[in-house]
């Protein structure tokens, strides 16, 4: 089949039956007119590559056909999108809290299998979260398609806006004042400066960060104690061979300190959510946890051996020391070999630098929080 006809067939397949022939006939004329004009300019027939270039210029069949489609261009348009996003954010956070409370009650009421309860809570949250997103998307798409705009979308009052803080968890802890008080006190977005330094950020900003950090570190803790498994972490593929990754003894030695460190971080996040205004206390706690982090980083670095890669009898260590903290070695990173030893060397270099950057970042955290503790 001719290339142009194949292209037109792909466009036709996306069009409604009643207008298909008409649109395709017009497109055919357009394409052939362009081909003829180009052939006239070149004084020779076009090659397949040149014909294809013209079709590519006209556009992908899906895009071309979509331009002819009647009705909205998007599933949820710009007018409805903010409402959809709010619904998703607030709904997911409420689901998260409800799942968390349910899990907490099950755990403290003496469960037979805590691991199974946690796994069920995760499963329940993700299942209901996806259902919620799907239902909201379906409702939004129907409203968009039939141009439905309920009265509450257009006829709103300022005094009813308090519930919109629900999509930001930091407001749950900080919302001791009413929405109108917040506006009156100038803490609302309307009076925010165009840019702010970290020191100028409101408790709400810290709250959002803390909520995310709490969930992320919580997930890490569950993985660290073996309640959650991420497939693919214990083996990687190098040149087609499945290479097993075994942790070095240092991780077993530091198992409890790392767990305590993560729990400490979660404690700070929880404290930030409950007492967002307590800036000095938060800074002091952050310093303590960062010092612990620095101690852990140093011990891991000092151990010098972090993982072992093995395939069959062949083994290679992921290990490092101060010698690797050399910019010349970083520049050579892209020239690394793709065999077992080469990958181990590359990972050693990356991990060494990651530890060094982590140490610098922790020192910065200590200094910045010391400054906040003094200023607060």
């Amino acid at each position, binding site marked *: 089949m001719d290339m142009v006809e194949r292209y037109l067939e792909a466009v036709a397949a996306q069009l409604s039956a009643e207008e298909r022939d008409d*649109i395709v*006939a*017009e*497109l055919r*004329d*357009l394409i*052939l*007119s*362009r081909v003829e*004009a180009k052939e006239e300019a070149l004084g020779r027939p076009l090659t397949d590559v040149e014909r294809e270039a013209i079709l590519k210029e*006209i*556009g992908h069949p899906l*895009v*071309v056909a979509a*331009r*002819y489609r009647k009705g909205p261009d998007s599933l949820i348009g710009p007018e409805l999108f903010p409402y959809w996003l709010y619904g998703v954010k607030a709904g997911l956070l409420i689901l998260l809290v409800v799942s968390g409370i349910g899990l907490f009650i099950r755990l403290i009421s003496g469960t037979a299998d805590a691991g199974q309860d946690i796994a069920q809570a995760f499963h329940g949250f993700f299942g209901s979260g996806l259902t919620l997103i799907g239902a909201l998307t379906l409702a939004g798409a129907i409203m968009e398609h039939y141009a439905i705009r309920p009265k509450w979308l257009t006829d709103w009052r300022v005094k009813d806006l308090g519930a919109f803080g629900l999509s930001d968890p930091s407001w749950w802890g900080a919302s001791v004042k009413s929405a109108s008080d917040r506006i009156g006190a100038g803490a609302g977005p309307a009076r925010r400066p165009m840019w702010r330094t970290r020191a100028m950020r409101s408790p709400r900003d810290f709250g959002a960060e803390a909520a995310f950090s709490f969930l992320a570190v919580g997930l890490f803790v569950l993985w660290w104690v073996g309640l959650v498994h991420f497939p693919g972490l214990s083996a990687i593929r190098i040149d087609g061979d499945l290479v097993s990754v075994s942790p070095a003894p240092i991780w077993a030695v530091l198992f409890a300190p790392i767990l305590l460190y993560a729990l400490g971080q979660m404690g700070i996040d929880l404290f930030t959510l409950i007492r967002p205004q307590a800036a000095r206390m938060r800074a002091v706690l952050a310093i303590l946890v960062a010092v612990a982090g620095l101690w852990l980083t140093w011990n891991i670095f000092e151990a010098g051996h972090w993982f072992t890669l093995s395939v069959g009898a062949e083994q290679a260590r992921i290990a490092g020391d101060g010698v690797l903290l050399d910019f010349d070695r970083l520049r050579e990173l892209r020239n690394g070999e793709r065999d077992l030893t080469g990958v181990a060397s590359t990972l050693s270099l990356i991990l060494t630098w990651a530890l060094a950057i982590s140490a610098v970042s922790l020192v910065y955290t200590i200094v910045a929080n010391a400054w906040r503790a003094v200023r607060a």
Partner: protein
Amino acid sequence: MTIDVELFESMRLELRRGSLVLAVLACLRTERYGYTLRQALAADGLEMEESTLYPLLRRLESQGLLLSEWREEEKRRKRFYVLSPMGTAMLERLAGEWRGINASLDKIL
């Protein structure tokens, strides 16, 4: 002061978008088919992608602003478009609006 090229391009397209309908209507005071219409617009400095122009022609026709007819020319059937009476009246109103906006902008700029 350098400006963000991508931002400029998106603002330029936004600026052009509204005026393209006016240009198409004005060009179709004379009967044309899609390909020659695009060439006429390009000759006057208004390049327009086919994927935008052809659906726009169909939309304007469904709104009653254009009339179309399939005819054979140069051994091929082509669809010719021309302004309908309503399209002519609409063009007149829109052109007046455009001149007003232009005059206001000229004063501001």
